[in-house]
């Protein structure tokens, strides 16, 4: 005789840790300690002052990305280790938790999503802001038409030395930072310009209209992506910058680090 609850019991049997993704207050209170161990909370804000907490920079719509980010972040914080098996309580179809997913923690799982945000040269908040801008731009486009854009974030000094201006720089002698409310509008207008945006570690927009000149050997990006992605991927191999690219053809936002594609997001889902 089996009951439906056994299904969940099987999933959650012998796990080394429990992850709660964006739990509500009551959920957290109910499960704050499982088998005497504190659970790991993965959310955008640490509302409940959880002891083990991983900050989500974006509400990843793709559940796999979300779990990867949470697990990698937890590994980085030392909340779990290689070889552990964890149960993740996560909301798949809505904001509230509606699924429990069992996943092993392995090094191979390290896709670098967490690394992209937390251990890059630019501040995590800057990376998040640039993602926000790219997603916004991908959703609305420029005057209804799809646009492409290339943001090179961090290590701006080196990036500037590995690129040349296509025309005069509209951000010359200006002090705008990504995350300022006016910037989204400005970037949207300037996105019709060709070339890349260069953004410094602290989020200052250094230049637009840059033609990137990295060496493109050994860049491993999927075939079929255009020159913009190739340039973006290549510059991250030559410098410590990360590149966030909005594709004009398929409308996806992709992030590159160390010459590799780390993350792919569909702006329509945010």
């Amino acid at each position: 005789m089996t009951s439906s609850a056994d299904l969940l019991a099987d999933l959650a049997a012998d796990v080394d840790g429990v992850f709660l993704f964006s739990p509500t207050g009551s959920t957290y209170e109910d499960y704050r300690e499982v088998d005497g161990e504190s659970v790991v909370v993965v959310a955008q804000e640490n509302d409940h002052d959880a002891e083990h907490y991983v900050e989500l920079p974006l509400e990843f719509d793709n559940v796999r990305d979300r779990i990867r980010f949470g697990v990698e972040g937890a590994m980085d914080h030392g909340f779990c280790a290689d070889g552990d098996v964890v149960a993740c309580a996560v909301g798949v179809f809505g904001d509230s938790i509606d699924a429990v997913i069992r996943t092993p923690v392995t090094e191979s799982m390290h896709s670098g999503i967490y690394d992209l945000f937390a251990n890059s040269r630019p501040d995590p908040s800057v990376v998040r802001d640039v993602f926000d801008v790219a997603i916004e731009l991908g959703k609305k486009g420029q005057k209804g038409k799809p646009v492409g854009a290339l943001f090179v974030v961090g290590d701006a000094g080196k990036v500037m030395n590995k690129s040349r201006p296509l025309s005069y720089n509209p951000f010359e002698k200006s002090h705008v930072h990504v995350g300022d409310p006016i910037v989204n509008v400005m970037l949207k207008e300037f996105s019709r310009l060709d070339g890349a945006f260069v953004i410094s570690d602290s989020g200052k927009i250094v230049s637009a209209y840059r033609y990137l000149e990295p060496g493109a050997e050994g860049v491993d990006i999927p075939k079929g992506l255009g020159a913009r992605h190739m340039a973006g991927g290549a510059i991250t191999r030559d410098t410590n910058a990360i590149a966030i690219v909005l594709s004009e053809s398929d409308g996806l936002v992709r992030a590159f680090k160390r010459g590799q594609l780390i993350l792919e997001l569909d702006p329509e889902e945010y």
Partner: protein
Amino acid sequence: MIDTSPTPTVESVLSAAVRARPGTLPPLQSAGEVVRSALLSLPARLWLALGVVVLAAFLGYLVVRVNRRILVGAGVPETIEGTAFERTAREFGTSTVSLLANLSGYFIFILGLIVALTIARVEYIAAFWNRTAGFLPSLFLAVLVLIVGLVVGDKVELLIDERLRGVKLPQAGILPGIAKWSVVFIAVLIALGQIGVDTVALVVLLATYGFAIVLFGGLAFRDLLASGAAGFYLLLEQPYSIGDRVRIGDTDGVVQEVSVFVTHVESDGAEYVVPNRRAFTEGVVRIRE
């Protein structure tokens, strides 16, 4: 028997009434006459005084309502939420806004009462009330300044506390308290000055305190201020910008970041954080290939 002088005081009216007691038993129509003439002699001033009191009460009530509206409209309740003063006020079943609003209302009512008493020419308390009337606006202002000072002090404490929350340093916990009591101290000083207490000693104390802050602040922040001043020039004029090769003093490399206080210069994987002051004292060399 009946005082018909043009300035009947309460005293005389009362004495007239006392004399009109049934004990002395004057003829009946004479008693009616006494009441009638008492009523006739009473109205001129006492009715007016009564009217003033009613008007003052009404005005006071109006001011309370309007003030409350203005304070709420100006977002005062949200701004002062969580301050110690507001919490204490709440414990006594009131709030800062109603305290302030009521205060102005009471002020107007008491003023009206004094005017009424003057009109009624209650002589033996007039002398006392005249001095009180002169003193009242100062007292009102003093109480107002004190309440505002307490609330602003609390708010300053909260704000600084929030700003410092990110800094996990136990010693930083003393700063909000210092800021709060500085504001309260100044408010008390102004309030005492308003009601005419000699505050010279306290002012000297304040001056010493302010001087110490400026002196030690200037000493402690000397480098920071110099760097900040230089940073403003660097940000406005941009003699060098991100991506340029520069040499500041004996540090050379590529400029990665220019902020108000420091310039980040990187070369061969080492990132130097150079105070902007040095860009001025030691000069900047731009290296062009």
